[in-house]
């Protein structure tokens, strides 16, 4: 992380007074014992107590806080529900945590325009809860949906099991209100489509708290499909499971969800919540098909046939909605389930081309031997998004370092086969130093120039995403060479 600014640490009392002038009462947290509640997010191997925490309730307060911090040169780390898995909300010793938990109101539900406008602290599931009595829902569904906030979903461009068919957060956001570090309040998009100017809505989504603070969110809501059924298909090899996934997609079937788990993950999940999974298979697919009953029946036949053709040894279709949700409960609780079989685990998040699933799993098994640590795999197979859970014991000397080295090897492997470092969890602090595996210096500098357009003094979440910090003035410098007219021999007309 960037070296703490001694001057900022020295002026902490002044900062706190100034914050209290903006947010009165309990909205400014300064006691060490209370600050500890904010020292980490969902990536709990990293911890840092912040300088202070401020919990504003209005956009105007957010703007004043940012202006103050910018004036005093104080860094700001935005935080939603703190469930992020890449350390995006990890505090800085010399920085303020700007928590958005008090922005928890649903502002407007407009069924006719299929849009819901909410404050960023509303949970992902909270949106669905607010509209489900009219048959609507909000499609992206990260496993943490009961707790994670929509503002955090915007910051990380969160996915979930249904994004294969319904898209990620970025494909379901219509509008934002944001506050820039200089306190300027901007509206991007709205209930209409295709905002004017550059697609800053698209850029804000997945920007990990580095560009601006989101204070209002408008999302698309959809009518729930008439029916949804899930199929469990067990295989005696991961190759068969992977081949079935590829065959389903290749046949033009886009399921509502298409997930895969390997044997360690299946058993951990089954121990944890008795979802009805077979224990004697090496790979388990969960395939959900949704739509009108006639369509689901038809597609269920197609998918079942493919699973059989690829040697499925276990097939079970959900008989009712209760059973379907039970099938999903195992998958959605895979992380806590892993927490029961191992003192610690870290969850990786690479994405690979689907046809690389089996070879990557094979090489992951070799890496597991090399690093001497076990791994359980759950993943969004339909879109090639892997979640290897590396199991370790943080109390054993050296195990955490080995787990991190194992994780880095897995992500490098993902990039090597044509994939990427992170599919839905974000870069944060966790994958920051691996960015050069995917991007060269020019690529990274250009991304940072975009940051400079939003945050020229770089007070928002510095130290995350980019392995090397450059000053904006340095990034803007340009070396101009006068030269000959290029390749005059080429055709010109």
């Amino acid at each position, binding site marked *: 992380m960037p070296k703490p600014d001694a001057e900022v640490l020295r002026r902490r009392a002044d900062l706190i007074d100034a914050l209290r002038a903006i947010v009165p009462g309990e909205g400014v947290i300064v006691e060490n014992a209370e600050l500890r509640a904010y020292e980490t997010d969902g990536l709990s191997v990293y911890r840092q107590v912040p300088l202070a925490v401020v919990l504003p309730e209005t956009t105007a307060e957010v703007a004043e806080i940012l202006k103050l911090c910018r004036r005093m040169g104080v860094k700001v780390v935005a935080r939603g529900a703190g469930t992020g898995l890449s350390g995006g909300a990890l505090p800085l010793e010399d920085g303020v945590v700007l928590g958005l938990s008090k922005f928890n109101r649903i502002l407007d539900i407009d069924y006719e325009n299929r849009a819901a406008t909410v404050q960023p602290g509303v949970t992902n599931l909270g949106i669905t809860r607010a509209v489900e009595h009219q048959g609507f829902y909000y499609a992206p569904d990260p496993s943490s949906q009961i707790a994670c906030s929509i503002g955090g979903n915007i910051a990380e461009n969160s996915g979930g099991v249904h994004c294969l068919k319904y898209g990620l957060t970025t494909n379901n956001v219509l509008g934002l209100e944001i506050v*820039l570090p200089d306190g300027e309040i901007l509206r991007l998009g709205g209930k209409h489509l295709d905002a004017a100017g550059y*697609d800053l809505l698209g850029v804000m989504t997945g920007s990990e708290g580095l560009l601006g603070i989101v204070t209002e969110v408008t999302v698309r809501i959809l009518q729930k499909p008439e029916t949804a059924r899930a199929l469990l298909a067990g295989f005696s090899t991961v190759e068969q499971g992977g081949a079935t996934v590829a065959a389903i997609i290749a046949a033009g079937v886009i399921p509502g969800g298409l997930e895969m788990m390997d044997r360690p993950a299946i058993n951990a999940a089954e121990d944890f919540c008795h979802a009805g999974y077979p224990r004697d298979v090496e790979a388990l697919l969960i395939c959900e098909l949704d739509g009108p009953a006639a369509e689901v029946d038809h597609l269920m036949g197609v998918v079942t046939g493919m699973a059989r053709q690829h040697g499925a040894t276990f097939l079970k279709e959900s008989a009712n909605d209760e059973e379907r949700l039970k099938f999903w409960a195992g998958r959605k609780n895979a992380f806590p389930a892993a927490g029961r079989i191992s003192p610690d685990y870290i969850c990786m998040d690479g994405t690979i081309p689907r046809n690389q699933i089996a070879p990557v799993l094979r090489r992951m098994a070799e890496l597991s031997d090399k690093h001497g640590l076990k791994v359980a795999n759950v993943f969004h197979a339909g879109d090639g998004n892997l979640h290897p859970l590396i199991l370790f014991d943080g109390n054993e000397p050296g195990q955490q370092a080995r787990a991190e080295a194992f994780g880095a090897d897995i992500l490098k492997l993902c990039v090597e086969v044509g994939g990427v470092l992170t599919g839905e969890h974000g870069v944060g602090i966790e994958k920051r130093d691996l960015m050069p595996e995917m991007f060269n210096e020019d690529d990274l500098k250009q991304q940072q120039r975009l940051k*400079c357009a939003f945050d020229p003094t770089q007070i928002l979440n510095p130290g995350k995403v980019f392995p090397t910090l450059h000053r904006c003035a340095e990034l803007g410098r*340009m070396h101009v060479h006068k030269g000959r007219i290029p390749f005059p021999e080429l055709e010109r007309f």
Partner: protein
Amino acid sequence: MPVTFAPGSIDELEKTVAWAIGEGAPLEIVGAGTKRGFGRPVEAAHVLDTTRLAGIGLYEPDELVMSAGAGTPLAVIEAELAERGQELAFDPADYGLILGDEAGRQTIGGVFAANLAGSKRLKNGAARDHLLGVQAVTGYGRIVKSGGRVMKNVTGYDLCKLMAGSYGTLAVLSHLTFKVLPRAESEATLLLAGDAAKLLHALRRSVGTAYDVSAAAYLPEAAAGRSTVQGVAGAARAAVRVEGAGPSVAYRRDRLKDLLVGDGLDAAAVADEDSRALWREIRDLRLLDSAAPVLWRLSVPPTRAGEMLEALGDAGETLFDWAGGLVWLAASGLEAAPPERVRGAVREDGHATLVKAPIEIRRTIEVMPPLSPGLLALNRRVKAGFDPKGVLNPGRLYGGV
């Protein structure tokens, strides 16, 4: 003396842009040039033509992914996809004819640079939602890449979104990687006739159902009258489209009919080839008078469609797509549909773009939707972060952008 450069590789592209930076000589970036009649006219010394950066690089139908050079004709890509029963689900529109060029010439780079999506944008998203990766040369004269070839990727900022719809003002796209999807085996379109307000309401009701409506448009009588598809002319129509496997299409069509017919609305249906032909006519604006010199494009929340019809219906011919949220207005001149009137009707919740007008008009009025001062300033800073010397399509979108 203006020169046209046509680099044939990313390295040549990089050299060309670096040269232009050195000379302080702005470039107009064009593919097939079919959208030159749209937007603010670019004041550039030279032309950079991307059509030699052509060819499909990777196409893996089973992985639902393709990549191609920016100059590859869309027609080539669509033909290749059709062979494998796939398509670009964002339904790229072809405005060649309405903009006074020919149809079928545009490049894939132009489609993404303009973020062009057609009627199915309603369900499937815009071009920007399907762009997975880009390689481009920025106004720093450097090759950069962003994204990748997989569907799910949050590694770094999503520069693909920024490139889509940037009209070549930030970087020159050289290669694009995008998502492709299976084409529906069949489709049907419900054609409703009746009172305008009821038809617009029916569009909104249809997309609020679970029947997966992929497109929904309102055709005033003049627009319907231009259709070559049997059964469309003769009255104002609402068209509601469903796609998918045969039995599912029939089921959804019938459910929608049960829901929407009655209360003064009648319904007929067209299927498959007729349905596709009608939606091509709607998407490519064949149902508007292509000779009309002025064309406005309005984006509003669908519930405001009736208000737009009321306010602007007598200013020219109209066509409503995206369940009423996309409004086209073709007018005989700017006198009939001046910016104050059109933008005055849209107000804040939406925006209006002057898509087509004589060049002298496009020089003098803001053709892109006006931005708030703060947003315009941020757009300018973004532009400066990619193209500090302003050599790439300067002023294509806004002054200084």
